[in-house]
């Protein structure tokens, strides 16, 4: 049964963003099906009526009154939700914490008038305008963090050539993550400062490595993003090469970590030549690339993000560290993980063969594929989706900001009898959802229940990319996910190993499926 309840707040003025935020909070409460907060104009009352919420607007409200309307499972839930709405309205959530006297610069010139010593500009305009803004910045001697996407490769080459001539750095386009002198830009985690400098063509790759460095007690001097196309032959790795030079010259950096998919051959040669002369140890994570090439120039190959972080931390403490296990060890589970995975595999049906990955981080999805291939081989039907890819985000927010699309996929995957384990990432930090675990927990619980109702168990394996300093809090997020029934691993690579181990236990007793990982 659904009950419709409402409250009227006389002559109450709230802005629309605040009302949307309160409605979203109410809809997040258990048992609340629908919530809307609008001025009680005739048109809005008509829309409420069409939405089945007419009974919410009692007491003859006038156009200057605010109506809180909601549909809930029962009266008690509705009462709690209305009380919550009243307290949120009284608290003025839309205004809370907003600095009253901050002036917002509208142009580069206005910004520089306020901060004449600034040496970096973050450009986040639509792609069609981003190049012009970046050129303006470079002409003024400013480094550029180019968050914008839809910048042509020709413009990227032009911008990076211009920056190179002027001794400046262009991070991007489509650069999601950087930490410059301790200042996070874009999607970044709150990490301790320290001697490890990162350069990455991968946003979530930088986030995972920097978070794991922090978790291992290390620290980050700078993390420079390059944009996903920098190591493409057409761009030539210009930004990665420039960032390596910056880190080599930086006294606060003693270890350098490079993160990328395997570059084009000519670009790889250029980058490896640059690091072959490095007096500082360099760790190279070219995800899925050839370790021998890296070994050959005296650098330290790292097949996973976790390996990159652990090797870098060890080198930062002792440059002669020999923390390099035999080839393949970074993608092999330890005994403890294997034992827990065997336990998690108990009772799984013989039809359950396929690992389903539902990722918000593209590079984390890539890392999972590398681990699964290393452990299980490529001839499988595993399906690792990057839900942050353009294919899924046209017209909707990125899953790191809004988990609703992924939640739908999680519940849907639970109905598939061939899924042996669900593999998830949860990315914390600045820019991400304020409480992703709470937003995902109901979907995880629903997925487990859906599988159970069909007589199956569904192991859901997750890792949280984040730190104790992040606004969302690593421990709190892990606790919420664990309470919802997810199996938590300390890194994405370990989560992938765990899922692969479960699949391995199940397939040991059956003929392997044939197909290609996608």
């Amino acid at each position, binding site marked *: 049964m659904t009950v419709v309840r409402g409250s009227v707040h006389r002559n109450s*003025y709230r802005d629309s963003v605040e009302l949307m935020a309160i409605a979203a909070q109410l809809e997040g409460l258990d048992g609340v099906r629908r919530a809307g907060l609008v001025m009680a*104009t005739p*048109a*809005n009352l008509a829309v409420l009526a069409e939405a089945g919420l007419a009974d919410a607007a009692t007491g003859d409200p006038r156009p200057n009154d605010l109506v809180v309307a909601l549909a809930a499972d029962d009266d008690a839930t509705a009462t709690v939700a209305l009380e919550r709405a009243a307290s949120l309205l009284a608290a003025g959530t839309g205004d809370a914490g907003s600095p*009253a006297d*901050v002036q917002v610069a509208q142009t580069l010139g206005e910004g520089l008038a306020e901060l004449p010593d600034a040496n970096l500009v973050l450009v986040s305009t639509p792609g069609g*305008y981003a190049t*012009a803004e970046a050129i303006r910045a470079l002409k003024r001697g400013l480094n550029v963090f180019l968050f914008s996407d839809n910048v042509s490769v020709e413009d990227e080459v032009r911008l990076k050539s211009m920056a190179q001539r002027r001794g400046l750095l262009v991070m991007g386009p489509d650069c999601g993550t950087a930490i410059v002198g301790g200042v996070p830009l874009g999607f970044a985690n709150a990490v301790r400062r320290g001697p490890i400098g990162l350069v990455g063509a991968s946003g979530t790759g930088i986030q995972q490595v920097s978070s794991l460095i922090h978790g291992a007690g290390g620290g980050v001097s700078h993390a420079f993003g390059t944009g996903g196309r920098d190591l493409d032959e057409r761009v030539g790795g210009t930004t990665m090469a420039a960032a390596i030079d910056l880190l080599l010259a930086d006294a606060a950096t003693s270890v350098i970590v490079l993160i990328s998919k395997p570059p084009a051959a000519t670009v790889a040669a250029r980058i490896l030549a640059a690091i072959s002369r490095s007096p500082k140890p360099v760790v190279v994570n070219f995800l899925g690339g050839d370790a021998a090439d890296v070994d050959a120039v005296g650098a330290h190959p790292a097949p996973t993000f976790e390996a990159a972080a652990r090797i870098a931390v060890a080198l930062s403490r002792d440059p002669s560290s020999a923390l390099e296990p035999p080839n393949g060890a970074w993608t092999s589970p330890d005994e403890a993980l294997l034992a827990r995975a065997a336990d998690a595999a108990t009772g799984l049906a013989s039809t359950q063969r396929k690992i389903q990955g539902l990722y918000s981080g593209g590079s984390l999805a890539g890392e999972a594929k590398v681990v699964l291939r290393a452990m299980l081989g490529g001839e499988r039907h595993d399906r690792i989706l990057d839900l942050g890819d353009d294919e899924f985000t046209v*017209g909707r*927010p990125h899953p790191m900001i809004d988990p609703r699309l992924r939640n739908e996929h999680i519940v849907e995957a639970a109905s598939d009898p061939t899924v042996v384990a669900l593999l998830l990432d949860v990315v914390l930090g600045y820019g991400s959802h304020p409480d992703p675990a709470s937003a995902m927990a109901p979907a995880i619980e629903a997925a487990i229940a859906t599988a159970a109702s069909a007589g199956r168990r569904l192991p859901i394996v997750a890792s949280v990319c984040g730190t104790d300093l992040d606004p969302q809090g690593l421990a709190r997020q892990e606790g919420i996910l664990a309470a919802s029934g997810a199996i938590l691993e300390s890194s994405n690579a370990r989560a992938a190993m765990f899922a692969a181990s479960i699949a391995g236990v199940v397939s040991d007793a059956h003929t392997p499926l044939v197909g290609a990982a996608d």
Partner: protein
Amino acid sequence: MRRTVDDRLVVVAIDEVGGLPGGILVRGPSDLRTIGLAPGMTMAPTVGGWAVPAVGLSIDGGSAVPWSPMLPAAARRAVTAWDPRRTAEARSVAAGLAHVGSLASGRWATDDPWSTTIAAIVRRLVIDLTYDAGGAATRDAVGMIGMGRGLTPAADDVLVGLLAGLDALDHPQRAKIAAAVTAAAPTRTTSVAAATIAHAARGAYSEWLHDVLVASGAPHGAGDPLPAAIARALSFGATSGGDTLVGLFAAMDVAAARAERGARAARGARVAA
């Protein structure tokens, strides 16, 4: 300080907001609530300016500078640049900068009945106004008054932007729509929104809206003032600036569709001849 007041409902804002119809701009803290001002307070004219008795505040009007909220000539000239490409550029900038969930972002939940309904009415209005269906356009415009979230419900802001765009276009149905929405608004929406609609109906708009209109006539490329003007518009209110732009973009759609319709008619006439 600028003095622009000639109406019963007065808006007091800081100078950086720019000219507003029925507005008094003052130099003060960004958030005037910190000095006790609040929506709904009564203001009284004094010999040298205005007073807000509830908080014992006096506003000195001695050095006030007048500003006209009526459209400048450059805004009317801008319409010659309104084609589908320019409109798409403007929409793209706004969508990239607007709050997700707002009309201007183009991205809202599929079960959001307000945004879905308003967007559908706006699409109908573009067709009505392209084909000079004044009766249908007036019914749609009046029907959307008061719809949506916010102190000025989103549809009311859309109407303001639409009226501004139709004003610049000198659209033949504008006067009819303006008269109808002015008459209907007082009983259909909030007091603040009704006043804003009344201002727009008589051709009075905010300075930031003037700026967007003027910038819409500039060529795309390096130095294009449109992105900055749109960014400034989006900073007005929570979503009011963006909602207003949605109405303006609808008028730009109307301009392009009428031009295309005219070109088709001309081609038809040549063929017939």
